[in-house]
Each structure stands twice: as C-alpha cells, then as structure tokens.
C-alpha cells in the first residue's frame, strides 16, 4: 500500500513537471508575438531604451496607419494577396491536371514525366536561383507579378504532383467507369467527378501551398528588384524585411512593429480557425 501511494505521488510530481515544461515552451512561443503587438503602440524611446516587458505608456494606434500608408505595408499586403491567390489557384489547377493524368492514364513516357516532376523535390531552389533570374529577365518578366506567379506555380508543382498523384491513385475506378459509360468526356470526368472526389487531398495541398507561397522570401527578393517603381510591386515578406534592414535608430520603429502585427495577426486568426486542417495539411508531406 505504502509503495503504491509513493508511486502515485511521484507520478504527481512528474505530472506537475510536465505542465511546467509545456507551459514554459508555450510562453516562449507566445511572448515574442505579444511583445511585437505591444511594441506597435510604444514610441522609439520605449522600444530602444525601455523595459521590453513594460506596457506602452499610451495606446497610440497611429503607427498602424503610418505602416499601412507611409511604409506601404498596405500595398505589399494586397500584392501578396493577389500573387498568392492566383498562384495557388494555378498550382492547384495545373498540379491536379498533371497528377490526375499521370496517376490514372497509361501512356508512353508516363513514368518518365512523373520522375521528372519528382526530381524537382531533390534540388534546392538556390541551385537554380541565378539562371532562373536570367530566364525571367530574358522573358521580360523581371519585376512583374506575372513572372513571380509563373515561377511560384512551377516550383510548387513537384510536391503538388507527387502528393495528388498518390491521392488520385486511391480513388475507386467504379465511379469513373460509370461516368464514362454515361458518355462523359475525359475532361468532364475530371472536373465533375474526380475533382470533387479528391476534395480532402486538394484541401490539404491548397493549404500547404498557400502558406508556403505566402511566406516565400528568396523568390520575390530575387525576382522583384527595388527602385522607385519596382518597390510598388513588392510582397509583404520582402517589404517588411526591407523596412527592418533599412531602419536605423531614427526610423519609425513603432510602424515596423505595426507592420509585423499586420502581417502576423491575419495568419494567427486564420490558423486558429483552421488549425486542424492546417496541421494535417502541413504535416501531410512528412507522413506520406
């Protein structure tokens, strides 16, 4: 009996230690984000000399307005929104088309083309960075959203095709055959029957691509050069990186933190709503 209660109390201690460990990590994750949000209301002196754990002396929302208009975060935000919406849509459409054909049709060169797409997973984007820059420049697409969108789609294809091809293979044949007997064309079969059946897989990979493309940094920073006119085209990540590296001590730091808040708060909101889908979408690649 004594032995048993001893065991229980040691389990109790372990339990408490577990909670402490988990709570400490949770604070480590959350605090930098809270700090960022609070710093948006502080002034330069408070940020640079003050106590980082202090609350702002007064709640000044002006920094958000300055970030949105003067620091052009509004423009960058909309640019990111436009580029990522179109490129994710394009990735999913083209990726699903290629994956579907490769997964469900036999033809000469099928394996070769499939392998060609998968090979793209093995190469880091930095290998092709310089020649990619030259290709985009030769096409006259340097500094354009069109160029960036096409590049995003191209670089998202290997994983999208890899994942969706595996998914299309698992779909039952019976439904497809029934539709063919009813006289559906290949195209109609794809859009009306197979795409709806593949919805769970499509959702996971859409999430994966949205987050990956939204957070992209090296591609926009390489393919959307600066300059007075070029800067209008910048995306959110590169815009914020530029504000932060260009900012000296006399710069508008509250506006930088407001910009950071503008960038992360929508992500946090979307994440809390769709956390289950986002977690499974992002880990899908590792589980497969």
């Amino acid at each position, binding site marked *: 009996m004594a032995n048993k209660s001893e065991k229980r109390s040691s389990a109790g201690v372990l339990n408490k230690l577990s909670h402490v460990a988990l709570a400490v990590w949770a604070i480590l994750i959350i605090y930098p984000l809270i700090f960022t949000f609070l710093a948006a209301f502080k002034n330069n002196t408070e940020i640079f000399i003050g106590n980082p754990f202090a609350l702002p002396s007064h709640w000044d929302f002006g920094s958000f307005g300055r970030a949105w208009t003067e620091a052009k975060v509004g423009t960058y935000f909309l640019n990111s929104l436009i580029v990522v919406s179109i490129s994710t849509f394009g990735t999913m459409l083209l990726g699903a088309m290629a994956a579907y054909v490769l997964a469900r049709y036999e033809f000469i060169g099928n394996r070769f083309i499939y392998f060609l797409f998968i090979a793209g997973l093995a190469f880091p984007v930095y290998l092709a960075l310089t020649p990619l820059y030259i290709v985009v420049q030769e096409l006259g697409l340097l500094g354009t959203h069109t160029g960036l969108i096409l590049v995003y789609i191209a670089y998202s294809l290997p994983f999208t095709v890899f994942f969706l091809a595996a998914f299309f293979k698992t779909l039952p044949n019976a439904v497809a055959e029934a539709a063919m007997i009813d006289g559906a064309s290949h195209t109609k079969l794809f859009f009306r029957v197979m795409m709806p059946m593949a919805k769970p897989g499509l959702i996971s990979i859409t999430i994966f691509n949205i987050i990956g493309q939204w957070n992209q940094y090296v591609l926009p920073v390489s393919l959307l050069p600066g300059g007075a006119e070029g800067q209008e085209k910048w995306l959110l990540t590169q815009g914020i990186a530029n504000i932060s590296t260009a900012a000296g001590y006399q710069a508008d730091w509250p506006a930088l933190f407001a910009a*950071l808040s503008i960038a992360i708060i929508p*992500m946090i909101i979307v994440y809390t709503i769709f956390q289950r889908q986002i977690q499974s979408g992002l880990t899908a690649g590792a*589980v497969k």
Partner: protein
Amino acid sequence: MRQGKYPFVIGFLIAPLALYGMFVLRPIAAAVQVSMTNWSGLSPNFDFVGLENFQKLLDDDKVWLAAKHHVFLLVTLPVITIALALFFAFLLNMGGGTRGGMMTGVWGSKFYRVVFFLPQVLAVVIVGVIFGRVYAPDGSGVLNRFLELFGVDAVQFMAEYGLWSILGVLVWQAVGFYVVLFAAGMSSIPAEIYEAAVMDGASRVTIFFRVTIPLLMETVKVAWVYLGILAMDAFALVMVLSIDEGGPDGATTVLPVQIYKSGIRESDYGYASALGVALAVFTIIFAVLSLRGGKRNAVEH
C-alpha cells in the same frame, strides 16, 4: 479503348510541363552549364572556363565558413529539435500518467498543440525581424532584460553568438511541427503495447526510451531529413537577423546567402552557379546518406 485519350493526356500535361521545364528544369540545367563559364552578367560575352569557378570556390574563405556553419546546423538543429519535440509530444500524449492501465495526455494538451504549431504558419522573415528585438544587445532586448533578473551582464547575441542565436530561432519555429508529427505517430502505436509495459511496472521514463522512441524511429528519420534540408537553407534568417547579412565578418554566413550576393547582387553568374551546384551536391549527398542509414535499422510494429 477510350477515344481521344492522347489529345486529352497531352492537353492536360502541356501547360504544367511547359512551366516546369521553363522555370525549374531549364535553370537547373543552365546552372551546371553557367557554372563552367566566366559570365559576369555585365556583358553578353562569356567563355568556357572549365572548373575554374570550382577552384575559386575552394579558395574562398566565406565558402568554407558557410560550409562549416551548415555542418554545425546539420548536427545541432535536428538533435535539439527532435529531442525537444519527442519530449513534448510524449508529455502531450502520455504525461497525464496511467488511468485504468491506459496512458493519458496532460490536461490542456490540445491548447499546447495549437500554440506550439503556431510559428510554423509565420513567415521566417517576419520571425527573424521579431527576434531582432528579442536578441537586442542591451536591456531593451527581451532576452537580455530577462537575463538581467539573474544578474547576467548584457549578452551581445548577434555579435558574439550569431550562429547559436540563429539556431535558436530555427528551433523555436520548427519544434511545434515535429511535436504534431510525433504526437500523431505516438497515438498510432497500439494501446496494448503500453498496457503491457504498464503491467510490467515500467515507469514513464522507461516507456519513453524503451517503447515509444524505438517504435517512432521511422518518423524520427523523416524528421532528420527535413531538418537537415532546413539546415542547408537558413537564408531568410541570416539575411534579416544577422549583422551585415552573414556577419560579423562571415560569422553567420551560409551558402544560400553567398549565392544570392554573388548571383543576384553582383551579377557574378558563373561563380554563383558554381556555388549553387556545390550546395545541391551537398544537399543530395546528405539526403542519400540519411535515407540509406534510415533503411538499415528500422523497427516495425
């Protein structure tokens, strides 16, 4: 059999293949080609110089520094991240102790899982800028102000411990992803195995090392490869967080930063392409080695 199969197949493949060929395959092929020229980008003329760029690369101190940093990250990033993630995942799944012979998760495990995973959806660049203030070298920095409570003098994080600081951010962002991955793996381990272990009087520590980790080995190896690939990157963090984009004096530089600087900024296309080829070879060797090693001692359940 089916009519009009080939026109359909071609119609569906042509656009994806064209984009992929144009922006991925062609640049990859060109990288190898350009790496053997002295193309500076300033003039349209260039000569074939053979392996000269690779020779130059071997004599470049920054490249050796970068390679050293990749090796450092290649070891520390997976070890620390996987250890922390396994530990947290175990606590979340089984930290609650045994109830009726079943292992239960701690109270609030759902909340922790959501919070831990959160950094994964934030852009690395944004995280880097935020950590610029966390690591600030005086009392206005979050970390230094905290250390002050224990009487520690202000630490010059980016100037003296740049690479460790960058490692810290990489770990901070990555752990949650692997917690979710490992937790999913743990919950797929059959309950009977744990029940048997609990019956035999195994403590939670024993169960963690003797049951959970061996059964999760496959997932851990996948994690190792993913984190290794992450260790070959670190571009965005070095660009926004470190002093002088890879400094001070190359102390935090990585190959992608060198590629970006010489290729995009200085238009030294030939040399930058050679660096790219070196990075790709490095990455592929790592991936092949770790996948090979992963096959040998797998435990199945």
